[in-house]
Structures are given as C-alpha cells and as structure tokens.
C-alpha cells in the first residue's frame, strides 16, 4: 500500500505545544487489518468498567447466559449496564488483577461454544427518532468512551439544559504512539464511524458534526471523506502532535474555543466522543448490539505479530498476547493503553475492558530508568505543556511540599499528558511530581470537607 496524498480540501488544525516522539511505533501495527479473535473457553468480565457507579450484578453462579445478555445493570445515572461476551454458564464472581494494580471483581463465564445471541432490541430508524430514544439505546447498550476514560456516553450527550451545545467532535486523533485501533476502524469501517457520528449528533441535537483525525492516517481520512457527505459529517485533519486527542486540546484545535479552568466541554458548546465509540453507537442503534467487544491494538517490539484484534470483553491479556504469536524476547513493561497515558500492569491476568485501546509490550531498552538531575531551566517543558502551565516550577513546588503555592500555579489544570516529562532533558519526573501535588491537594480538600 502506497502512502496516499492528503486531500487538498482538508483543513489542518492544531493546538499549541505538545511533543511528537520520533519513534511512534505505529508502523508495527498500522497495516494489520482487524482480525476477530477466536472464541475462548472462559471470559472474566470485570464488573467496574465505567467511570461513575459500578453496575449492579444481576446474574449469579450457575446461571445460563446468552451472548449479549445483561450481566449487570446500571446503578444510577452515571453508570452503564454490562453484557455477556458469549453464551455459556456463569461460574460466579472472582477476584482478578485489575488494571489499576489492585484486585477487582469480575464475572467469570464458561463459554459453551455455541456463541448464541440473546434476543436483541430492534433496530431504530435514527433519522426519524428523537434524542431521548437514541440516548436511552446508547445507555442500554452499555456504551462508554472507548478512548481510555470509559465515561458513559449518554451522560456526555445530556448536558445541563442551560448549556447550548453546537459542536459534536468525533475524536479520531489517536495521538498516543503505538496505538492504531481507531485508525483501522476508521479505515475499514468508515460508514460505521460516520453513521455513529451522525447518530451522536442527532442524539445531542447538534448540527455541526466533525471527525477530527491526525494527518498520519491519510488512508483513513480519504476513506471517510468519500462517504462523509451522505451522513452530513465534516472531516478535519490535525497536525501529528501529542496530545492532539486530549479533549481540551481537540476542542481548541477544531473550534478555537478554550475550555476554562474547572469547566466542561459543554460549557464551550462542545461534546467529544471517540471514533471507536461512534462505531459502537452505530451498531447499537442499527442492530441493538450491546458493547461486548472492541478493537484493540496488541503491539510493541517484543510482540511476534503485532496487530489489531476484535477482542471480547473479559479476554485475559495472556490469551490476547497468544493471538499475536507470543513474545520474541522478555519485555520490559506491559501497558494497557498507550505508552504516554496507559497503565503499567504487573500481571497478564488483567482482562480486556471497554476502554482497553491497546495492549502494549515495551522492550527493555525502552523502559530504561533514568537518573533525574536538577532543572537546567531550558524551558522545554513550558513549550511542551499543552495547558500552558509551568511544569518546572510545579515540580519544584512538589519537592518542597508547597501545595498552596502550587494551586496558584493552576496545578489542577494539568491533564497529566506527560509531554513535559517526555521533553525534559534532565529526565525530571515532572508529570509524576504534578500527579503527587494533585493527589495531595485532593486529599486535603477531602479532609477539609470532612471537618
């Protein structure tokens, strides 16, 4: 496949700051088409897969379930239900290693091999239905932001009534190095993404729907541009720069609106949804299919055959790695998500969740531990910071434990993208220091509220 040329009509935008790793690792998997993983014997579906209230489990050990059947129901507004990835028997609740390093509850399902669907909800003619029907379906199908945060999509689509939303941005930036899952989805299923985008636009009552993609995915941009008109969706190109796909940076790049401190995208009239989420929304609305599988990039130098796989929720990472032929050499780190903002894991017993955009193994040489040295005041972190903060100053305040002063430097605005630490020639753990400041400030506020 030759690199395609960028369409001349494409508008290319960006934010200020950021970094771009020379070696972004996308080459490993960007040409691998999406493959569907074979059925496994056992799935361990983690119960708490969304931000907000974890859903309430409604099955018990011994129950027979069908594929797509409800396993746990939403517990509150900021919560979504969870569905079975295949048909089989519920073995019960087990504790498995969670993505955050602590044990977490999962529903263990022994597959019966038949993979029978449960009775699905009927298709909705989205062009002629009202917003509430669409939102309800999106909620019932358990759809969350699949880019990483796993924020329930229907909540984003329901901004407070006093806030007028006029922009729906579909995030196809995929600015994290190594990850190519959204890229492949946009390239192979452009209609699904565009239709999902249009549905999301209708559900939020928004006319301006754009899909924003970094211009290192020219093939995906071209594939979508061919079909964008029929769904009345715009395509915007973005400069290849991390963190282009961060919500606030994306909004600024596309609309030139700045989200104020402490405000939400809806405050500047925007809603951002991930490209993978859009595809899932299209399936949910057109076919009633709940979110039980997702496209995940399994990649990294130690992986024998890096690729993009359609994995069911509850697939253990160890099984997912087997699909790619295992590892060539002993990896230095296992990360769920991308290398910049993903979470390092200590066990391959973690299972795939709704927000697992990537399973990344890093080579030992890439995870070298640097000795950090004092700040040399070069200012590279200030140039890199997409939020216009002063990471160098914040880091020193963290070391000195000056939390009140850090608040004056707007430490809570940090999006923890890690661009500062990436840029720092003294290898200072800048973002780590800021994370510590934020955690400590949050603790203190909590204590004060308790008082």
């Amino acid at each position, binding site marked *: 496949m030759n690199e395609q040329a960028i369409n001349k009509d494409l508008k290319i935008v960006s934010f200020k700051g950021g970094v771009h790793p020379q070696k972004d690792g996308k080459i490993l998997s960007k040409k691998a088409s999406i493959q569907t993983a074979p059925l496994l014997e056992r799935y361990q579906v983690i119960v708490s897969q969304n931000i907000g209230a974890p859903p309430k489990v409604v099955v018990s050990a011994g129950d027979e379930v069908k594929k797509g059947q409800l396993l746990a129901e939403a517990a509150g507004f900021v919560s979504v239900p969870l569905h079975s990835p295949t048909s089989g028997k519920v073995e019960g609740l087990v504790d498995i290693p969670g993505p955050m390093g602590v044990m977490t509850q999962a529903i263990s399902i022994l597959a019966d091999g038949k993979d029978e669907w449960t009775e699905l909800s009927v298709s909705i003619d989205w062009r002629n239905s009202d917003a509430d029907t669409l939102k309800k379906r999106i909620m019932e199908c358990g759809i969350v932001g699949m880019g990483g945060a796993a924020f329930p999509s229907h909540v984003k689509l329901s901004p407070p009534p006093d806030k007028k939303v006029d922009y729906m941005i579909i995030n196809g930036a995929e600015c994290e190095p190594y990850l190519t899952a959204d890229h492949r989805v946009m390239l192979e299923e452009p209609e699904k993404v565009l239709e999902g985008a249009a549905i999301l636009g209708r559900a939020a009552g928004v006319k301006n729907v754009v899909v924003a993609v970094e211009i290192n995915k020219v093939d995906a941009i071209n594939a979508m541009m061919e079909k964008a008109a029929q769904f009345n969706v715009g395509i915007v190109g973005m400069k290849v720069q991390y963190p282009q796909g961060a919500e606030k940076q994306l909004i600024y790049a596309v609309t030139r609106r700045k989200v104020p401190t402490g405000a939400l995208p809806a405050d500047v009239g925007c809603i951002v949804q991930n490209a993978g989420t859009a595809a899932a929304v299209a399936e949910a609305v057109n076919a009633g299919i709940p979110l039980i599988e997702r496209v995940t990039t399994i990649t990294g130098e130690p992986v024998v055959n890096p690729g993009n796989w359609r994995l069911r929720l509850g697939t253990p990472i160890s099984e997912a790695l087997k699909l790619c032929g295992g590892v060539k050499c002993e990896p230095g780190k296992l990360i769920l998500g991308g290398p910049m903002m993903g979470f390092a894991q200590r066990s391959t017993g973690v299972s795939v969740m709704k927000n697992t955009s990537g399973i990344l193994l890093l080579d030992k040489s890439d995870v070298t531990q640097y000795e950090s040295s004092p700040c040399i005041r070069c200012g590279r972190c200030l140039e890199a910071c997409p939020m216009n903060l002063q990471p160098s100053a914040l880091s020193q305040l963290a070391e000195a434990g000056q939390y009140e002063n850090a608040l004056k430097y707007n430490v809570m605005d940090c999006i923890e993208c890690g661009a500062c630490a990436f840029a720092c020639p003294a290898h200072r753990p800048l973002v780590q220091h800021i994370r510590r400041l934020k955690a*400590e400030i949050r603790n203190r506020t909590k204590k004060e509220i308790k008082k």
Partner: protein
Amino acid sequence: MTSTIILSVLALSILGIILGLAIGLISKLFGVATDPKVDLVLELLPGANCGGCGKAGCADFARALVSGEASPGQCPVSSQEVMAQIAQVLGMALEAPDKKIAVVLCGGDIQQTKVKTLYNGVNDCISAMLVAGGPKSCAYGCLGMASCARACPFNAIEIINGLAVVHNELCVGCGVCVKTCPRNLIKLVPAEAKVHIYCSSPEKAALKMKVCNVPCIACRKCVKSGEEGQFTINGFRVEVNYDNYPGEDIVSKAGCPKNCLLTAAQHFEIERNEEAGEVVA
C-alpha cells in the same frame, strides 16, 4: 614616606571613630526596643526550627514564650534542664511536660511483607501510593520510600529493610513525620511506653497472613495477659492504649505468636539482624 603612612593611618582611624560614633548614635536613637529575655531564651532553645511547638521556628517560639503565649514545655526538643533554665529566665514555674516520641506502627519490612510488583517511579511514599498503592502487598503497611525520614529534622528515622524505624534516642517527638506518612502509620506516643503492636492493618487476619508474616491477627493473647484497659481492640487488630500502657514484661508474658507485640528495642534489633541477613523466625 613614614609621614604618608602615619597620615593615612590617622585619617582612617579618625574616619572610623566618627562613623562608629554615628552608627552608635543612630542605633540608640532609632533602635526598636526588644525584650532582652527573648534573646536569652532564644540562646537556650535548640535552634532546630523544627516547628514541633507549632510556631514558625525557634525565634517565633521565644517571642511567644516571653509574651506568655506559650510555655517552655511545648518545645518537644529541649531537655528537662534546658526547660528549667528557660523557666528561670522567664520567672515562671515549670509544668511537668510529658515527652513524646514517634513510632511507626508497622513491622512489614521487605522480608516479612510480600512485594507484589517492581516500582521504579519517583522515590516518595505519596507518589508510590498513586501507582497501584505501592509495591508492597499490604495496602496498609509502610511503603519504605523514606518520605518521613527525609522530613525528620533530627535524622531520627532510618529505613531498614524497606521499613521506617525510629531511633528513640534521636527522636524528640516534634511530630513533623506524622503528617508525611500517606498511610498514617506514625503515632506520637509517651516516651515511657516501650511496648507497641507493630501492625496497623484493619484487614481480616486471614487476608493479612497472606501478605505478611508479622501481622496482628487479633488473637488477644496480649489482651488476656495484660491488665484491663491496657489494650483496645479495634476491628481486626489490637492497639496499645497509650493512656494506660503496659510494661515491658508484657512481651514475654503474652508470647505474641506473630511477633508483632514488641518493645521498641526488640523491634529495632530484629530489623538490624534481618538486614545483616540473619532472619529471625
């Protein structure tokens, strides 16, 4: 030649005398009156500026003492004799202070508590807490990243085997370390209380035993062999009641099966020995 030298020496001396007189005069005229007691007291205070008294350093405390807002007993660092001297300067009676020291209530060093993962982030307890709750399996134990040791103005805390241990002879009970521990393991206790239960985990015994060799399993042997009111049972662990603490003999009387009821000296020795490679059963 000689006249030049004499002349310049004279000129400079006269200049010096005139300026000296001027400075003296001005300092007398515009001087701010301070209580001479403040300087006397400041001289006697340790000058560590630890903040243990609650004031911004020793000078601030000295002012508070002289103005009567504070009492000498509030300085956790000064010895009895020094306090008596300060009281003498101030012309007041010395109240008997109860000296306190810090104790880290955890016995889970790297040999006793299982390490669940390799942590290679920032060497600091709060940072380690942010990454999956730190490298040790026990979610309540000492992280061993020395945040308290670095904060201690008297170098009284040492990390031995990945566990913070207080040097009793150096600790003055200023309490600076207490705030730094994200796991709230450090307590200020009466210096006379020698016996502690080195476990702070509220987990059930079975869970604790999975991750640690020296947890308090609330078997209550110590409670039964001690007098009433010397221990309090708090969920799945026993705590020493520091208002009515037991004597050192309780350790041999109780025979703690998990070796978490220890005197501070025993605890220290065990850690030292383990560090040297002699694992004590």
